[in-house]
């Protein structure tokens, strides 16, 4: 085997904190060879991004590389990147020219005040002595290469005129502009929809084959790893846990952490156990032709000339004890649908017939403020981001007791007991009532959100992507908790998610949304195994499965 192009030896990165030092990366070594894809995988806080940034000397101060070597073997010369320092012409000659990097959020990495073309041409001119016209031709060719349509025109457009996927393509074009030998991709598809993600992944793969580049791909998604990695390195809290060939890693994980990680991923690959449901279905909420149109460019006097159809005629029934999933890509109107059901937004048309516990039916869509008040105890919501949905200035007790205070006539002592009981129920210590949300991790905060939601014994919970902000090992724990609560209280869920595997694990039925409409609705098994609608088929097939054998280029089992 030839010498590796990049060889990281005993790398350590430290971040001095207030009173102690955080060892973000501890003594990591790995090699990267020409033409191979090495995936760095780990959960949040594992140090994978820090490792990637260290290779380009991009560690944010006060963090610093405290030990080790990063040997770049290029043009027959060996350079130690650590010795180059974080500024100066030497490291600039490496950045972009030898090693290029693409980031997670293309919008923040592209300048909004310069055209895409300007930014690419500037990068080319910085590193090579060619005329402006030639550089422009090169840039157009690059955009063409990353399959941006009509590249000559795209050069003169701004980043905000592009969609997320197009922006990431432009970023890749820019990264490729100087023919780098190593491409570092730091979660390049995390902010993208699955269908766009699939396109970008195949683009990176293709470019790598064409150019013989080495790719260091950082991700938290085992599905993506299985799709594109040649070798995988697993990180946990700054340590390298395991490094192996992708097939070996998925089929014969050696370390306990890798096994646990793969276990939680694979658990979400199959439908989870569902609570027993009554034979006869009683609908708890019937959504009938619901529509929400936001007026666009409302004139000063005149009527608005155009509408944004966030929800465009949605009909859906949620039965008692049932979990109905809503899946769709960003902008499909799934979150808006959830919020409209609780009248965060007032729908422009349609009905939401909610059957109360005493059998009476109310139309939420046309209910007045006072009428809604009585419903807030029965229909609850769990938010996506547990960091923003818990008031940082209130204690856990205050947060969980707030719905009790407004919807019941409990005394302070009764509320204390109830909050302790709820905390125990969601698997948290009972003595944390007077702490503040910032003392808890994401998974714990989401448990607190769930405790708040079930505090008043609701009948219907609208869960808006409750697991998206969590690491994969926490997802099924939270879902299992929600399922247990469902069996206990006879809850119904409207479960909104972009993640088909979570839906498959957790839901009974699923509705697929696109552009404010439901394109397909049916049992989870049917939608996941035998989708009928074209869009659903694309969506399902785009989801990266955590099984490298499903790859087109997978070798036969030997």
């Amino acid at each position: 085997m030839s010498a590796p192009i990049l060889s990281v030896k005993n790398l350590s990165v430290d971040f001095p904190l207030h009173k102690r030092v955080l060892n973000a990366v501890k003594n990591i070594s790995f090699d990267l060879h020409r033409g191979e894809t090495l995936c760095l995988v780990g959960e949040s806080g594992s140090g994978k991004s820090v490792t990637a940034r260290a290779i380009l000397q991009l560690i944010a101060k006060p963090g610093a590389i405290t030990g080790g070597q990063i040997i770049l073997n290029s043009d027959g010369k060996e350079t130690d990147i650590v010795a180059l320092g974080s500024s100066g012409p030497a490291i600039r000659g490496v950045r972009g020219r030898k090693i290029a990097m693409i980031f997670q959020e293309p919008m923040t990495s592209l300048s909004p005040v310069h055209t895409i073309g300007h930014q690419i041409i500037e990068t080319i001119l910085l590193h090579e002595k060619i005329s402006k016209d030639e550089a422009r031709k090169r840039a157009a060719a690059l955009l063409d290469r990353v399959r941006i349509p009509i590249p000559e025109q795209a050069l003169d457009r701004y980043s905000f005129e592009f969609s997320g996927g197009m922006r990431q393509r432009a970023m890749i074009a820019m990264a490729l502009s100087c023919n780098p030998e190593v491409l570092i991709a730091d979660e390049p598809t995390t902010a993208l929809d699955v269908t766009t993600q699939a396109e970008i992944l195949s683009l990176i793969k293709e470019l790598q084959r064409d150019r013989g580049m080495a790719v260091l791909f950082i991700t938290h998604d085992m599905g993506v790893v299985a799709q594109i990695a040649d070798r995988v390195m697993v990180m946990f809290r700054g340590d390298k846990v395991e490094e192996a060939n992708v097939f070996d890693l998925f089929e014969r994980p050696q370390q306990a952490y890798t096994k646990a990680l793969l276990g939680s991923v694979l658990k979400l690959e199959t439908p989870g156990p569902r609570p027993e449901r009554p034979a006869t279905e009683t609908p708890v909420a019937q959504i009938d032709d619901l529509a929400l149109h936001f007026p666009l460019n409302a004139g000063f006097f005149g009527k608005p000339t155009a509408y944004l159809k966030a929800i465009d005629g949605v009909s859906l029934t949620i039965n008692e004890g049932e979990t109905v999933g809503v899946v769709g890509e960003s902008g499909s109107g799934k979150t808006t649908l959830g919020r409209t059901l609780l009248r965060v937004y007032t729908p422009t048309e349609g009905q939401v017939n909610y059957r109360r516990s005493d059998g009476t039916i109310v139309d939420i869509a046309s209910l007045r403020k006072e009428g809604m008040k009585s419903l807030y105890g029965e229909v609850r919501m769990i938010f996506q981001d547990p960091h923003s949905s818990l008031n940082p200035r209130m204690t856990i007790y205050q947060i969980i007791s707030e719905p009790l205070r407004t919807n019941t006539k409990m005394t302070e002592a009764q509320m204390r007991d109830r909050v302790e009981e709820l905390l125990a129920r969601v698997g948290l210590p009972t003595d944390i009532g007077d702490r503040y949300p910032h003392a808890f991790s994401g998974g714990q905060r989401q448990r607190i959100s769930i405790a708040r939601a079930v505090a008043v014994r609701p009948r219907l919970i609208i869960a808006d992507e409750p697991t998206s902000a969590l690491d994969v090992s926490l997802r099924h724990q939270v879902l299992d908790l929600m399922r247990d609560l469902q069996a206990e209280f006879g809850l119904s869920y409207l479960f909104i998610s972009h993640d088909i595997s979570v839906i498959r694990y957790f839901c009974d039925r699923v509705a697929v949304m696109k552009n404010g409409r439901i394109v397909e609705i049916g049992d989870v098994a049917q939608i996941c195994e035998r989708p009928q609608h074209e869009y659903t088929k694309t969506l399902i097939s785009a989801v990266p499965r955590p099984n490298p054998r499903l790859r087109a280029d997978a070798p036969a089992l030997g």
Partner: protein
Amino acid sequence: MTLEAKPFDPNELLDQQVTAGQFQAAGQWAMVWAKFKKHKLAVISLVVVGLIYFVALFAEFLAPYDPGKFDPRYTYVPPQSIGFFVDDGAGGSRFQPHVTGYKIELNPVSFRREFTTDPEAIIPIGFFVEGQPYKLWGLFDSNWHLIGPIDQSQPFFLAGGDRLGRDLLSRTIHGTRISMSIGLVGVGLSLVIGMILGGISGYRGGMVDRVIQRVIEFIRSVPTIPLWLGLAAAMPKDWPPLQVYFSILVILSLIGWTEIARVVRGRFLSLRSEDFVISARLDGVSEFRLIMRHMMPSLYSHIIAAITLAIPNMILAETSLSFLGLGLQPPIVSWGVLLQDTQNLRAITQAPWLFIPGICVVIAVLSLNFLGDGVRDAADPYAK
């Protein structure tokens, strides 16, 4: 980011990565304070501002004299300096805090009296001496002063005298009370107006918001100095000083509330769409409780920052008005009133110590600004 040194244990719940830190149960204010402490300049300013307000609070006790006490013998006397040891006549020296007296000579060319220090005339001074009687805060009778001459008939001018032979130090100390309280009370008044109008504007939105914002823009577009001048000139000359003081306050805060209203409105607008506010609404919380219990606490620290940054503007406004002779009038003593004396050339050439109140203004304004900066940075301890 939470990283613990312990190795992975498969039996352990994966989401038990609790941040073991000092802020486990720390509330908002503990975190604000921790962040504020990192801003060294702001901490120093906090001490300075604290000292200034301490002076304002105990002005009667800290000042050697009443601000109105005058002595025509000592017009424009230069400042004295404090000495600690005197000759005991036997070649040694003994400890005795003192100032030296003045020799007065008539300059035959300029026909002015000139003061030179007379090292022979030792005026013993002491701490906690009995002097002019006063009523502290109008409540407690006392005649104790922090510092003063032991013999009350002797001259004692640590910061020099003014054109009527009044002690500038005493006047500056008493002026501190007026100037600093104008800032505080004026901002308090602007705060009430600003919070109500800004809050309504941000929470309600729509037409109400537009109207209030246009009003704010109108007020801010009026040139301030002519507006003050107009309003101050409209005040009857025969009003008692206290009434003038309060009218100046009202005039200043009628203009000063706009800044605070904008801060409050901006925070309300961004808070309105925060998940935790929506979630409180979905808890069925009443509108009043939603504002007071869920939104306001996020505003407190921002409001404190806005206040700290508004006080110096008030102080400067009062100073300029009084300096121009349109604000407070003697016998009220404020820094601006004291600076009126510096309007003529003679002050600059012969009695530069008359600028001491001006230095006080600079110190007060600067330290309040630095303090405000620090508070503003610390205001949102949850921001990354």
